[in-house]
């Protein structure tokens, strides 16, 4: 979204009414999409994976933003920007809350090594694949912007959706399932990449009064997340009822994400740290927090995808090339990681699991990383990034569904994955 849209007046009452009704229809659809009955129908039709991943909502958002449809023009997107900030914070908080110490400790050392290989090789291969394209296509090639964009792409591409046909249930016999462990470790790659980019590649903004080195911003990000986590902990300890919990969580995430955005940091990372802190502090209302997060997770996620879809600017070839290279980079990087893991005698999944993991979708966190870049930085490359990451998310989502149904070789156990994937959104 570009700055010039600020304050653009709505022309007529009928235009405003059309926009409001359109937006409400879209949001109502998002709510309906989250309804258990609709989800049961999706499962029966065996399209739950695609729907659960929110692909239709991205497409709807894109259609709504088309000038001929006119439901989400630039000025509406500008008004919706606070919703994006809140949604990014929410996604970061949910991912962070999932990283409780018990979950991490239950991941075996050799599985963690494999996870590290998967993350590193995927990150490196995307960096090379997409970096080469950016060198050719990016007008500012050779400057810090090139590294920033390449790291952002690699961070987004490293993430693997935490739910879907490629992920089994979390624990088997008291230990984390190895695949579950590998998938969750990839989230860290995305978060760390975004942390580094937001700290060391500061946007140029004359209104900022704090001029600090990148390392200071890195520690401010971690400190802010920790402080907010502590505050949320103290805040939650002093409320007891369900609706107050919702208000406190919404307020805390809005506050943390807003501060992060104000400081030109990543709301995802700050809220991730806050969620991580909260998950690892002892408190008796953990189940209530989890249920509140789960209750709001899907509607917020789907609304986020709607708005993300409206950010797509599909008329430049570079975005499509990035998409293809991102898919190729993830598949290549993961394949290399399996081979290295085999040679290093650490954990290597079975053939079927390996195939599914190689084709595993990027998930919502990857899309969030790209959208976060759009909020942080301006420039011609950022829209390519958004198209590339969202496009790659859709392609990998379709690939993994094909794989689960045996269309790409292998067994195909569509019934079981459908049950798994329907458990929630692929954050």
């Amino acid at each position, binding site marked *: 979204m570009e*700055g010039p849209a600020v304050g653009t007046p709505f022309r007529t009452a009928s235009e405003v009414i059309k926009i409001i009704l359109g937006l409400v229809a879209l949001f109502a659809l998002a709510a309906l999409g989250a*309804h258990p009955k609709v989800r049961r129908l999706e499962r029966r039709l065996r399209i739950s994976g695609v729907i659960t991943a929110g692909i239709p909502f991205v497409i709807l958002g894109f259609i709504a933003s088309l000038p001929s449809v006119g439901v989400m023009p630039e000025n509406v997107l500008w008004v919706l920007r606070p919703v994006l900030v809140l949604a990014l914070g929410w996604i970061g908080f949910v991912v962070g809350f999932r990283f409780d110490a018990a979950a991490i400790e239950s991941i075996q050392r050799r599985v963690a090594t494999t996870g590290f290989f998967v993350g590193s090789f995927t990150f490196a291969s995307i960096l090379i694949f997409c970096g080469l394209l950016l060198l050719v296509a990016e007008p500012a090639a050779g400057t810090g912007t090139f590294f920033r964009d390449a790291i952002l792409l690699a961070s987004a591409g490293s993430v693997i959706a935490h739910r879907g046909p490629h992920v089994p249930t979390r624990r088997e016999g008291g230990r984390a399932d190895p695949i579950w462990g590998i998938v969750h470790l990839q989230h860290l790659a995305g978060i760390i990449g975004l942390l580094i980019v937001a700290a060391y590649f500061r946007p140029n903004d004359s209104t900022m009064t704090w001029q600090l080195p990148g390392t200071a911003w890195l520690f401010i990000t971690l400190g802010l997340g920790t402080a907010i986590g502590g505050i949320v902990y103290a805040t939650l300890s002093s409320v007891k009822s369900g609706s107050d919990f919702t208000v406190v969580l919404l307020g805390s995430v809005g506050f943390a994400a807003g501060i*992060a955005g104000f400081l030109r940091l990543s709301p995802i990372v700050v809220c991730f740290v806050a969620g991580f802190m909260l998950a690892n502090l002892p408190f008796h209302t953990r189940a209530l927090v989890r249920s509140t997060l789960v209750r709001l997770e899907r509607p917020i996620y789907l609304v986020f995808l709607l708005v993300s879809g409206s950010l797509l600017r599909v008329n430049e070839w570079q975005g499509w090339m990035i998409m293809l290279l991102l898919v190729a980079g993830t598949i290549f990087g993961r394949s290399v990681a399996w081979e290295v893991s085999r040679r290093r005698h650490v954990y290597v999944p079975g053939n079927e699991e390996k195939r599914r993991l190689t084709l595993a979708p990027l998930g919502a966190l990857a899309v969030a990383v790209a959208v976060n870049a759009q909020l942080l930085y301006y420039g011609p490359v950022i829209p390519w990034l958004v198209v590339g990451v969202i496009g790659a998310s859709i392609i990998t989502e379709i690939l993994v569904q094909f794989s689960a149904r045996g269309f790409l070789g292998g067994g195909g156990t569509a019934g079981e994955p459908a049950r798994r994937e329907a458990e929630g959104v692929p954050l």
Partner: protein
Amino acid sequence: MRVFLLIVFAGLMHATRSFAPQADAGGAGAAGTAVAFGYLLLSALFAGSIFKSFGLPRLTGYLVTGIVAGPQVLGLVSMPALENLEIFNGMAIALIALTAGAELGVREMKPLLRSIFWLIVVAVLGVMGILSLTIYLCRDLLPFFDHLTMIQAVGVAAVLGVTMTAQSPAVVIALRSEMQAEGPVSRTVLGVVVLSDLVVILIFAVVSSLTRTLFGNSADALETAGRLAWEILGSVGAGVLAGLLLGGFFKYVKGGAALFVLAVAFVMAEVGQRIAFDPLIIACTAGALVRNATSFGHKLLDEIEGSSLAVYVVFFAVTGATIHIDALRMVGIPAAIFVLVRGTGFYSLTWVAGALARAPLPIRKYAGFGLMPQAGLALALALLFSRTFPDLGVTAAALVLGGVAINEMVAPVLYRIALVRSGEAGAANADRDPALQGVPALASEGEG
């Protein structure tokens, strides 16, 4: 602990704003709105619970948070952020009116109709007259009367009298819900404030049109009647449509209705005001239809209760932040006089109306306090007044705003005391389904 947290929130907010003090637009605009949303939500919630522990209404805590954090005191929340957050206002008002409508069960209200009728005729219309007369008599204190002829002064006094009589269904519903109040006083007050809203709108339209003619502006009676008919009948029609939609959703979709209710409230507020409908009438009609024509009245109330706290907290905090403290400085003394006259008028005339209606003693004694809160409608009418009479509008509107500011702070406290003394506070929770007890309405009782 709660005070400490409030200080921490304020400190963080101040530090954040010091980073980019001029950055309310541009890149930080969205973040500024998000941080203001989070800050107001958290601070107001805690301030509300602190106020509650002192026996004051939680919503007064929300309002005070807004005033203190707003641009006129500490300046922690900027004006552009507040303008962005005003999107919650329409939705909150629609939700409140939806609640009001859903509370208006014909069967339950029937025994109270006589009291409601007399309260509107005697107390509401009586206060309108008394206020108009007082404003006319005090015109020497008000500089905008200086150049008016006597007949013009009578007209302006009448318009201001009507404007200042407006009550606040929002505050009444919020307090009723917060106090879990149930009984003849809270029901009668609810009925009166909802119906007198319509009366005030109607009378304002007629009186302001007549007064315009005194200033040499032509007022087409047919045009005024047409505008009123469009606003009222159109709003009722839209409300019926919205009510059918809600009833249909509850019947056929079930579950997950909270988001749908919020979306409907958003449409009623945003679309309604853009086509000159009154969102309050639309939502109230929709709520009343769901309550009286379907079996989903309680379901609607439960859905609103479960999902609207965040909207209400932000709404009252934003309202507090936009209270015109500076208006009080300009017209503080006359505004205080009119507030006093208004309050005394409502209290004493409620006794008279109660006697005429042979209402039970608690209604005579306490219902008057429920008519005192003032907020949205008075502000909207003040705005309309300043648009209709641009030559004297700014100062005159400041007078209304000053009165609203005082009423917003004082009246909820008085009505809270009245609900406690009448014995109705907490009665709703005792009547509820045991499974729902402890599930908070507008505010929880949990944290004490």
